[in-house]
């Protein structure tokens, strides 16, 4: 038998896998792990959403109380004010670390603040998704 005939024959032999007695049990185990992973992921994402929502609401309400926002002021103004508070907090932290060259209250500094905040949020979300996949 030549190599041209033998190679396809080996492939045919490989393609005929022996039937395994516990094939159904194996499939059931894989399905159980899929279900468990799906539940864990749903729980992790839901929990992250709830925590994020609570933090956002708390920040907004805190600002409203401390600055005495009048009823009727738009939610946009509230978020803007909350963002200014957050920037001020980060700025004071940077000042405390001796990084005074970065001014978050300026236009470019504000942009950088939001870019970094967005990147951190994306990293956190990616980490949560990855964590849920690994469980």
């Amino acid at each position, binding site marked *: *038998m030549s*190599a041209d005939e*033998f*190679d396809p*024959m*080996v*492939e045919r*032999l*490989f*393609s*005929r*896998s*022996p*039937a*395994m007695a516990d*094939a*159904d049990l*194996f*499939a059931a*185990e*894989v*399905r159980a*792990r*899929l*279900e468990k*992973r*799906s539940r864990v992921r749903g729980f992790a994402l839901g929990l992250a959403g709830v925590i994020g929502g609570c933090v956002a609401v708390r920040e907004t309400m805190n600002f409203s109380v401390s600055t005495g926002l009048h009823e009727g002021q738009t939610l946009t103004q509230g978020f803007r004010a909350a963002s200014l508070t957050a920037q001020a907090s980060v700025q004071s932290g940077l000042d405390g670390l001796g990084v005074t060259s970065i001014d978050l209250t300026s236009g470019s500094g504000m942009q950088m603040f939001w870019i970094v905040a967005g990147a951190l949020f994306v990293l956190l979300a990616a980490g949560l998704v990855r964590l849920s*996949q690994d469980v």
Partner: protein
Amino acid sequence: MRQALRDLHDTELAAQAAAGGRREYGELVRRHGSAVRGLLRRMGAEASLADDVAQDAFLQGFQRCAEFRGDGPFAGWIKKIAARLYLKRVRHEARYVAEVEADEAALPVDHAGLVDLDEALKTLNEAERLCVSLCHGAGMSHPEIAAAMNLPLGTVKSHVKRGLDKLRARLQPAADRNGRSIHVG
């Protein structure tokens, strides 16, 4: 419902699995689980490790189901995933660079005179066995195997050739002696 799933083609099941259909994917696991586990055992994995890696491969396959485009058989696609996962597991042991010659005494023919590929593969060394299994069992090309095993392309080709030569030496006499084509025992 189960009967309906059994009537669907692999490509249809994979498409529904890509949309989150776990029952459809379960049917794919039922169809191809034994083939994947069998390949891993032929690559040299012990039964428990083969089952473990096969489960991981199917879980990864579910995540990546959208990548399966149906231009080849689903079995080949999932086998490649499983083979790569197994290689990752054994890579740190560097088992496939060992050049241990196997016992050449036993001829892999069962009572009925049928040739047993699994027994024949045991006469290959680790590197040859892996390369032949990846090439002819998982359908990977030589460059793909070289990349997956982190070996030079020429080395992979040598392993495949030597492995096939050994298989041929063992499988052909049995076939000739029985005067018929070779069957899996």
